[in-house]
């Protein structure tokens, strides 16, 4: 029972991490109508810069800040050079152009940093484990991720619901042209918004560094998961991203934790392991397919004046 609870917590934690990765994606997706495959590249930039700055300064938090700022700047550069030309294009053009950015970014990073994975770690007080309730020992760093994720969720909620920028964001996501008519400089707003989305991606990447390998192509593994999250939640809905992320995290974790054992109750162990691992690899895609077949616009569809 404690194992089940611990796995549930693991699922929740993975969910919160996936929310960090996908929050920026869904904002950009929802408000600007751009499918940005290069979101994973921004995630990678965040991690690589965090590693480099941490190495140079010896401080994890300065590294974190470095990763975030760098991702934001790279994101704005990306918007200026490529993305802004894609706002009025169809999804196909967006997918391909941002795919091109991925190819470019991966090679550039490989040329600058090489292909050997980089190392940096969180400070010692974030590195241990504590017993959160009797019987469950949990890594502090994962709790830290949950805390940061919760802070980002609340922060985003407050920004979107309470501020003037949030109002523009909401207005922009339902009717982009109308906001323009009202005298807001749309291209500036979008540049900043894209930068903000990139900052979130960079934050996720920099936070992930102590947990996962900092290497070329690290963003793509996260990218596909993030798209699953965004699509399940409903494109453009931050609330949907949160729910979708937790759902994906829990299903993925519980699948990996228990499917092989469940299969073993009625199969021979060797094939149960094989099939179980196969099924748990597929679990989130099955989840996504089921949800989309039942609710073609995701769990929290955003009503929009345009497609």
């Amino acid at each position: 029972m404690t194992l089940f609870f611990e796995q549930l917590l693991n699922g929740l934690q993975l969910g919160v991490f996936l929310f960090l990765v996908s929050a920026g994606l869904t904002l950009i997706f929802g408000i600007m109508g751009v499918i940005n495959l290069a979101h994973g590249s921004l995630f990678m930039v965040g991690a690589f810069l965090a590693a480099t700055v941490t190495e140079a300064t010896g401080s994890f938090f300065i590294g974190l800040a470095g990763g975030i700022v760098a991702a934001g700047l790279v994101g704005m550069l990306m918007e200026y050079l490529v993305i802004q030309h894609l706002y009025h294009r169809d999804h196909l053009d967006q997918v391909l152009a941002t795919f091109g950015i991925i190819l470019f970014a991966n090679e550039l990073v490989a040329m600058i940093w090489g292909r050997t994975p980089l190392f940096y770690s969180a400070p010692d007080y974030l590195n241990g484990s504590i017993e959160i309730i009797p019987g469950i020992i949990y890594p502090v760093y994962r709790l830290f991720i949950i805390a940061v994720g919760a802070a980002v969720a609340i922060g985003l909620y407050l920004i979107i619901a309470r501020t003037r920028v949030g109002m523009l964001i909401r207005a922009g996501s339902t009717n982009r042209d109308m906001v323009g008519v009202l005298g807001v400089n749309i291209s500036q707003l979008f540049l900043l918004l894209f930068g903000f989305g990139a900052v979130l991606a960079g934050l996720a990447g920099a936070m992930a560094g102590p947990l996962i390998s900092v290497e070329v192509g690290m963003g793509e593994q996260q990218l596909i998961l993030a798209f699953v999250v965004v699509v399940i939640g409903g494109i453009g809905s931050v609330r949907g991203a949160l729910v979708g992320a937790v759902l994906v995290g829990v299903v993925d974790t519980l699948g990996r934790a228990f499917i092989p054992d469940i299969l073993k109750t009625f199969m021979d162990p060797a094939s149960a392991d094989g099939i179980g691992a196969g099924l748990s690899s597929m679990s989130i895609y099955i989840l996504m397919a089921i949800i989309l077949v039942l609710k073609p616009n995701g769990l929290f569809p955003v009503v929009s004046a345009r497609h």
Partner: protein
Amino acid sequence: MKRSVKYLASLAAASLLGGAGLANAEPVKIGMITTLSTGAGYLGQDVRDGFLLAVKEEGGKLGGIDVEVMVEDDGRKPGNGKQIADKFLDKEGAEIITGVIFSNISPVVAPLALKAGAFYVSPNSAPSTFAGKQCHENYFAVAWQNDSLHESAGIYATKLGYNNAYILAPNYQAGKDSLAGFKRYFKGEIVGETYTKLGQTDYAAEIAKVRDAKPEMVFHFLPGGMGINFLKQYAQAGLKDEIPIVVSSASMDAGIVKAVGEIALGVKSSSHWNHDLDNEANKAFLTGFREAYDRNPTVYAGQGYDTAKLIASALKATGGKVKDDPDGFRAAMKAANFDSVRGNFKFNTNNHPINDWVGRVVEKADDGTYYNKTIEVVAEGLADAYASDCSLK
């Protein structure tokens, strides 16, 4: 990195010039198909650099014979591997094909080379197929047979006195082979066996299961980034000091040690080579490699270097004849009359090496970096499990 590459360019030029200068014979063409791009690119880079170091030592020759080494990146894609093999074999007339890193490339490239009458010399990947029933007289594996890597870890774990273990690998063929290899020689009990997703990044669920199973040790075969992810998270879960890890060299090479830093401290691994092995060939290799490339070699560089030295010994024996004297070249290859960086080296009947294996532990150096230190001999003359299925003598 820039520097090493520039070096390579001049090296390539030097080897070409060397070939032209001695106009008595066409240089022997060696096609190297290896993985230079993708996340695993450092494996191929080290194999290439190790191999080319041996060529450079002789000023563009191997065993006194002019060679031309053509290097291409397969991008870890079997289709690309085939494309390059076709070019090397049909157009360039390569007589020796080498360099393949991964077990998904070799089944495509090796048959092509063998069909064309060329010799296939693997510096790394050696799947069970080519060690057993499908073995071939012109197919040589220099590093190990895939399973041996993990068998040696099983022997080492037994030797260390562990009574039970939890084992993990990705859900694909090499992963399954690895666990089977470990179990073949591990005498203790397996308390848990988990197959993970290929390319998985989050291991919290698996780590929770390990903690729950309370094993005495953990063995895993999670190559490259996957292993780094696992180790980082394993350490953060506080398990590293509670439940020690014993792996094979592929899961604890110098690249991985560098990427996980102090987390690697104390991790034990079995290997057929280490930089501190005490033999002349190894010392010369280390000095030469550091001088040429300004970095420390990984085990893959050693394998690339050995591959070149083996080919050199055979070329010397036949006076540069490969396809013109296949029997002679084959016999010379099989004799393996060269000084290996791992000390003893000899081939089994199936053209796969019989290796000695050492146990290593990661320690901290005075300059704050971490490295694998050899502590004991784990197994001597370990032959692979498939040789009896091979009809070669």
